[in-house]
C-alpha cells in the first residue's frame, strides 16, 4: 500500500512538472514562431508583389477576383477596417465613382489592398488569427502527441526530414553513448568509493578526492577537445569523429560492427568517464563512511562477520538508496556537459541536433528537441524514484 501511494504521488508530480515545463516552453515558442512566421509572410507578400509586377498585371483586376473574400474575412479585427475600406473602394470603382482619380493612383490603392489580402490569407493559414493562449495550448498538444512536422533544413546526419523520427533517432544515440559511459562511471564510482571509505586518508582516498574536486570544474567539451588533440593529432589512435559511414564490407558481421562502434566511441566514453568518475566515487565514499559509523555495522563486526561481507552485504545494502539518489543527481549534472560534448565528437545525438538547429535557426527542430529533452528528463527522474522506492525499505513499510 505504502509503495503504491508513493508511486501514485510521484507519478502525479511528474505529470504536473511535465505540463508546467511544456507550458513554459510553448510560451517561448509561440513568441519565436510569431516572429519567424511574420518574416515568412513578409517574404511571401514581397514575392507576390514582384511576380505581379513582372507580369504587368493590373492590381484592380486581381482585386476584383477576390472581392467576395474581402467581405468574408473582415471578421478578423486586425484587418477589418482595411479590407472593408478596400471593399468599398472596389464598389466605387465598379460603379464608376472614381472619375477624379488617375489610373496609376487606382492601381496603387488596389495594390495595397491586394497585398493586405495576401498577408491576411497567409496569417490565417499559419493560424496567427487564433488568440495566443489557443496557440500555446496547440503547441502543448502537438508536443504531447509528438506531432512536430517537417524540418525546415536538411539534416543528412539523421537521414530524414520528419522531425519526430529525427529527434527519436537523436535520443537513441545520446542514450547509447551516455548510458554506456554512465554504467562504466557508476561501476568505477562504487568500487573506488568503497575502497576509499575503507581506508580513509590513504593516498588513494586523497588522490581521488582531489581529482573529484578538480574534475567538477572541468568543461567536458574542452576535455573532449584535448583528448581528440592527443589521440588523433598526436598519437593517431582515434579517427577524430564518433560517427562515420560504415564500410559495406563489415556490415552484417556483428563482431566487426561492434569493433567499429568501439573504435569510434571509446574516446567520447573516456571523456565522460574521466570527468565524472571522481565526483561519483567521492559521494559514494562519503555515504559509505557515514553508514559505516552506524551501530548495526559495529554490531556486525563485533559478531565476527567477515569485513568483506560487512562492506558488500551490510553497508552497501544500506547505502544503496542514497547512492541511487546521488547517482541520479550526478546523471543530471553530467548530462549537460555530455550532450554538448557530442558536438566536439560530431556524434549526431541530441546535443548535435541542438547545435544544428541553433545554427540553422530551425525553430521546429529546436522545439521538438526541447520537448523531448523534458520528456526524457521527467521520465528518467520518475524511473529513478521508482527504483529508489524499491530500494528504500522505509517507503515500502510506511503507510
Amino acid at each position, binding site marked *: 500500500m505504502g509503495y503504491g501511494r508513493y508511486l501514485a504521488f510521484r507519478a502525479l*508530480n511528474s505529470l504536473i*512538472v511535465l505540463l508546467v515545463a511544456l507550458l*513554459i516552453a510553448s510560451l517561448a515558442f509561440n513568441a519565436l514562431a510569431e516572429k519567424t512566421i511574420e518574416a515568412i509572410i513578409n517574404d511571401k507578400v514581397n514575392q507576390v508583389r514582384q511576380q505581379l509586377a513582372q507580369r504587368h498585371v493590373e492590381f484592380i483586376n486581381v482585386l476584383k477576383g477576390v472581392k467576395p473574400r474581402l467581405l468574408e474575412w473582415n471578421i478578423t479585427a486586425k484587418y477589418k477596417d482595411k479590407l472593408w475600406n478596400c471593399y468599398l473602394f472596389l464598389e466605387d470603382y465598379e460603379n464608376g465613382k472614381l472619375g477624379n482619380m488617375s489610373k496609376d493612383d487606382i492601381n496603387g490603392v488596389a495594390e495595397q489592398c491586394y497585398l493586405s489580402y495576401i498577408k491576411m490569407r497567409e496569417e490565417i493559414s499559419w493560424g496567427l488569427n487564433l488568440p495566443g493562449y489557443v496557440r500555446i495550448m496547440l503547441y502543448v498538444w502537438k508536443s504531447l502527441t509528438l506531432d512536430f512536422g517537417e524540418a525546415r533544413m536538411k539534416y543528412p546526419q539523421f537521414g530524414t526530414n520528419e522531425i519526430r523520427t529525427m529527434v527519436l533517432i537523436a535520443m537513441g544515440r545520446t542514450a547509447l553513448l551516455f548510458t554506456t559511459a554512465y554504467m562504466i562511471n557508476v561501476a568505477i564510482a562504487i568500487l573506488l568509493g568503497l575502497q576509499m571509505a575503507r581506508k580513509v586518508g590513504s593516498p588513494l582516498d586523497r588522490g581521488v578526492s582531489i581529482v573529484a574536486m578538480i574534475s567538477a*570544474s572541468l568543461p567536458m*567539451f574542452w*576535455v573532449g577537445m584535448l583528448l581528440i588533440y592527443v589521440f588523433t593529432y598526436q598519437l593517431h589512435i582515434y579517427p577524430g569523429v564518433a560517427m562515420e559511414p560504415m564500410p559495406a564490407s563489415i556490415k552484417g558481421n556483428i563482431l566487426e560492427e561492434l569493433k567499429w562502434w568501439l573504435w569510434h566511441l571509446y574516446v567520447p566514453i573516456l571523456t565522460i568517464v574521466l570527468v565524472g568518475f571522481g565526483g561519483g566515487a567521492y559521494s559514494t565514499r562519503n555515504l559509505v563512511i557515514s553508514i559505516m559509523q552506524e551501530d548495526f555495522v559495529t554490531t556486525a563486526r563485533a559478531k565476527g562477520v567477515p569485513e568483506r561481507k560487512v562492506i558488500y552485504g551490510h553497508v552497501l545494502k544500506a547505502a544503496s538508496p542514497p547512492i541511487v539518489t546521488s547517482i541520479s543527481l550526478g546523471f543530471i549534472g553530467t548530462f*549537460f556537459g555530455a550532450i554538448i560534448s557530442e558536438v566536439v565528437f560530431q556524434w549526431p545525438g541530441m546535443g548535435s541536433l541542438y547545435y544544428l538547429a*541553433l545554427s540553422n535557426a530551425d525553430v521546429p527542430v*529546436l522545439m521538438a528537441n526541447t520537448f523531448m*529533452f523534458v520528456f526524457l528528463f521527467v521520465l528518467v527522474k520518475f524511473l529513478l524514484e521508482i527504483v529508489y522506492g524499491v530500494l528504500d525499505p522505509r517507503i515500502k513499510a510506511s503507510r
Partner: protein
Amino acid sequence: MIRIDWNEVKKKTREFWSEYRRFKIGLIGLGLLVILVFMAIIPSFIFPPATYYNWNNYPGWEYNPRLAPPEWVNLFSAKKYTPPKTIEPIKVEGLWQYYAEVYIKLNNITDENLKKQVYEVFKQQMAGKGYVYYYEYDFKWDIPSNDLIIIVGNVSTTIKLTLGIQRPPSPYNGKLVSVSLYPAFTTTVTPTIGNVLIHLANSNQLMQVLVKDYISKYENPEIFKNATENNILSANVLSPVTLLFYAPGPGMIYGEQGVTKGVYKFNITVEAANGTLENPPVIKIRIPGSCYGLLGTDFRGRDIFVGILWGSRVALMIGITYAISVVLIGLIYGVVSAYAGGLVDEVMQRINEVLYSIPLLPFLILFAYTIRQLYGTLSVWHIIGVLIIFAWTGLAIVVRSMALQIKEQPFVEAARAIGAGGRRIVFKHILPQLMPYAFASMALAVPGAILIEAGLSFLGLSDPNIPTWGKMIYEAQNSLSSWWWVLSPGLMIAITGMAFVFIGNALDTILNPRLRRL
C-alpha cells in the same frame, strides 16, 4: 530593530580564520581567487576598453599575426618563430635628393660645385613631389612571418606608393646571390582618417614580381612548372611574404631550402598623385611575425592573453552574481517557507518541487535563443538572469529542512516564550545559524554558473561582442592543432572552478559537523 554587535562579529571572524588557516586546500583556493580578482581588475588599466566591448572587430588585431603560437615557444622549439616587429625608417629623404643622386651617378659628376648645382635644380623642380623611405630588417629566425604590413599614417592627399625589396646575399650553386625587386609592389592611398594598413600577404602583384625575378630563376624548372600548372603560385594559396624569406634552390617554394637570414632592405617611394606633399607622411613597416605575446593569437589575430584577462572578469561576474542571487533567494524562500509552515509552506514547497524538477539546460538554450531572436542581442546578464530563475530551488529545499530543525531547538522556543516577534526570530536566531552553510553554498555554486555559460557559448549562444572563455573554446573547436588557443581558456575555467570548489570544500568541512548532522 536588530542590533549588530561588531565586537562579536570581529571575534567570530578571527576564530573562523584561525580555523580556516589549517586547511591547506582552502588556502590554495583563496590564493587562486586573489590572483583571479587581480586578473579581472588589471585589464581596465592596461588594455583599451574597445578590446572588451568590440572583441571581435577591434582594429588593433589587424597588426597581429594570425594563429600564432606564444613567443615563449622559441625556448623549446628547435625552429625559431619570428617575433612581431614594427620597423621605423632609418632614413627619409626627398624624392629630389634621390633623383639628383641618380643623375650625378649616371653622368659621373665629380665636381663639388656642379653637384651642388644639380641638387639645387632638382630641389627647385621636385621639392614636395615625394619622399623615399629606407628600412632595414635583420631577419634571424627559421619560421618567417607570412604577412608584411605597410602602415601609412594620416595622409592629406592621394599618394602613390612603391615598394622595393633587396634580399640579403644567399648561397646558391656555390656563389652568393642577392636579389632585388623593384617595383615589388605599388598602390595608391587615398586620404583617410587614421592608419591605412596594406597587407602584402594576399598581394598577387608581389607574387608575380617574386615569381618573375626570383623564383623562376632559382627554382628547379620541373617543380616550378608543376607549381605554375597547379596554380600554387598565387597569393590565395601561398603567402608571397613567406616566399620572400625562403632561400633559393630546388624546392624553395615549399621552404625546402630553409630561409635566408640576414638584413632585408626595403625602400618605399611615396609620390603625390597630384600637387605636392608638404611633409612626409608617417610610414612604417610591420612584420606581424609568426609568434605573438604571452599566449599567442587566434584566427583573427586577436591576442588570447587579452581575451583571457577580460574573460576572467566576465567569469567572476557571472559566477559571483549567480551565486549571491541564488543563495539569497534560496535562503529567503526556504526560511519563509519553514517559518510560515502550514498551507503556505505546502504551496511554496509544491511550486519549488515543480521548478526543481524542470530540466535546466533545454530551458536555458530555449530562453537564450528566444531572447536573441526577439531582441536581436544576447548579453551575459540575460543568461545569468535565466539561470537564476531556474537554479535557486535546490538550495531552498535544503535551507527549509535545516530551518525546520532550528525552529524546533530550545533556544528558539525560549526566544518565543519571552515574546520575540517572528521577524526577530528569523533574523536573529535562524538566519545566523544558516549563514555558514550559505557561504559554503555560494562558493560551491560559482563553478556551475561558469561551466553553464561556457556550455551555452559552445552551442553558439553567447554575448556576441565581449570575450568569454566559453566563446574562445567554441571558436577554437575547428583549430585543435592551435593548442595555445584551445588550452588557455579551458584551463582558466578549470582553475576558477577549482578555486571556488577548494574554498567551498574547506568551508564545508569546517561547518559541516555541526549543521549537516542537525
